[in-house]
């Protein structure tokens, strides 16, 4: 089997979409936070918290949708914690975000062991099954790739235009963008930057939680410690690559879903003598290049990483 065979397979593209969805949701989460001016390094922890909350709830209640709800809820809680620390207390966003991720990771692993013990076979649930969309799934090539997926995938598709619409067409979205660009100007226009950032981080937490839940409730059907495995950090990179635009970010997410799928196939086939790990490094390398190219023009939100203090003189 050579690369050409792998890439020409429809199953490969369907897998690429499956792997892209968590990246897509996470990227929308990071995008929401960053457009409000907060670099959310807590995203890795938020995704992991969502994953466990979703899995735990689903296996306890048997309801996958309750699991999804719990994942979003727990993600929002972690988002609120992050907001309390960096927005209200104005702690440094970098170190605090790392701290939130470290803490969430530790607590999630701990809780998992408490809840599920140390069994040799990881507990599994019956994950969401794919729902072919009528008519759309019959379109050749595109149909089986995009429209024979999970309900959560369709939700993720919808969230991309929804977030774009929110950001560019609603007063709240404009307020969010204004705060991320220039919180003083936003305040002068009657917007409360503290409130906006708080809400943005809660929303970002919810989206990240959903991304986590997708991984075990739809894609894998079980929880493993490596379930997020740096996907949160990839989302930080994808936001840079997608130049803080929801549509472009979605494109970047699909691209790297494909890269991920490709390396998995290469790994499985074992026939191709290519270091597949280098493919995994691609999103990060591409991001670094994009940052260098973007350096002369300001691309990201202007007030990113600047704490807002109303009485600053």
């Amino acid at each position: 089997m050579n690369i050409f065979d792998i890439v020409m397979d429809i199953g490969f593209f369907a897998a690429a979409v499956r792997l892209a969805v968590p990246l897509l949701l996470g990227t929308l989460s990071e995008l929401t936070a960053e457009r409000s001016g907060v670099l959310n390094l807590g995203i890795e922890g938020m995704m992991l918290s969502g994953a466990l909350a979703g899995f735990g709830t689903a296996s306890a209640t048997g309801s996958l949708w309750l699991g999804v709800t719990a994942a979003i809820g727990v993600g929002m809680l972690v988002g609120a914690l992050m907001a309390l620390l960096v927005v209200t207390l104005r702690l440094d966003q970098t170190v605090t975000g790392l701290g939130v991720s470290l803490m969430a990771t530790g607590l999630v692993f701990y809780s998992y062991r408490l809840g599920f013990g140390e069994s040799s076979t990881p507990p599994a649930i019956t994950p969401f099954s794919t729902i072919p969309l009528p008519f759309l799934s019959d379109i050749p090539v595109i149909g089986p790739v995009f429209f024979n997926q999970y309900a959560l995938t369709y939700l993720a598709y919808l969230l991309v235009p929804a977030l774009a619409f929110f950001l560019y067409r609603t007063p709240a979205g404009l307020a969010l963008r204004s705060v991320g660009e220039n919180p003083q100007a936003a305040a002068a226009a009657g917007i409360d930057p503290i409130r906006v950032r708080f809400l943005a981080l809660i929303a970002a937490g919810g989206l990240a939680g959903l991304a986590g839940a997708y991984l075990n409730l739809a894609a894998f059907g079980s929880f493993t410690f490596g379930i997020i495995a740096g996907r949160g950090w990839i989302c930080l990179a994808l936001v840079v690559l997608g130049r803080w635009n929801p549509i472009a970010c979605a494109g970047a997410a699909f691209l790297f879903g494909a890269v991920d799928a490709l390396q998995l196939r290469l790994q499985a086939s074992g026939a191709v003598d290519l270091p597949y790990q280098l493919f995994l490094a691609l999103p990060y390398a591409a991001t670094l290049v994009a940052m260098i190219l973007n350096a002369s023009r300001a691309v990201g939100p202007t007030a990113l990483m600047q704490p807002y203090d109303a009485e600053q003189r």
Partner: protein
Amino acid sequence: MRLIAKQHQTSRRRDAMMPVLAVAASLAICGVLILIAGANPFTAFGIMVSAAFGGKLALTETLARAAPLMLSGLAALVALRTRFWNIGGEGQIIVGAMAAAWIGALPQLPTHLLIPMMLIGAALAGAALAAVPATLKTRLGVDEVVSTLMLNFIVMYVMMALLSGIWKNPVTGWTNSPDILPAAEFPVFWNGTRLHLGVLVAFLAVGVIGILMKYTTLGLSMKIVGENAKAARHAGLSVARVTLLAAMLSGALAGLAGAGEVGGIQFQVIASISSGYGYAGIVVAMLARLSAAGIIPAALFLAAVTTGADEMSRQTGVPFFIADAMQGICLIAVLVAMTLSRYQIRFRPTSDSKASP
């Protein structure tokens, strides 16, 4: 709720107490977690203390675990003091480890030069890697938070590719680098323990960085650039040069941590050679309140939590991951404590103008 800067001078003693308070709060939270797991927190902590410090093996093992944390903590300290947000410690540790493993397996080197060359090579590799984001920052204004994070993953996957590529054992198929030469293995100071040269290097590094920060013009320049770059410029310091030096020093320290793991513990590069030491270094540095002397207790504490948690988990059934939780909770707690010592929190007052008719 809003923060108001305190107008009176905060006492130094109170400031120094903050990390202690933070650790106490973290222990209390973890105590509750242990309680939830159905164990007595006091018994559990007791087991942890004796497993970490009781006896020669326990004590030396804790010290060996503290060594990479100390070096990584120093790396974070140097960078954070200069406000260079180096979260690329993980990648710098890995390149250090790779450089040490490569040099340590070179048969053509004179044997007595192997170990010094490993240390120097690892430090240079770490410094070179850190110089990339520092140069991008000072020359092009590329934000270092994301660039150092990206480099971590790039380096990690390059290492994985090497491990399953040219470094793969052709016979066994194990994805480890070849063993370093016996002469390249770090000497051990106490037979039967893992108290190796890397531990000494870590303690020496604490001294060196402590002296550097306190007694050299470079150390003071770093502090000035970190605290107020504009004032540094007005005082005639080159902010770009100081930032680059600090970043390279930070990278070199992280690289040394990687060398210690290869030369003293693993004798080869394995996929999990760093396993989060780079990020833990930031916890150590913050717990140490960015003072070199504080690095030793902070690193020992985190190392003890890890070694202690192993044994405690075996005896009580409380999940080992309490150690990971502890690390994150400590970092958050110390950040909050340090902020609260500088500010007072005032809840939104009902407006004064309303109160007076």
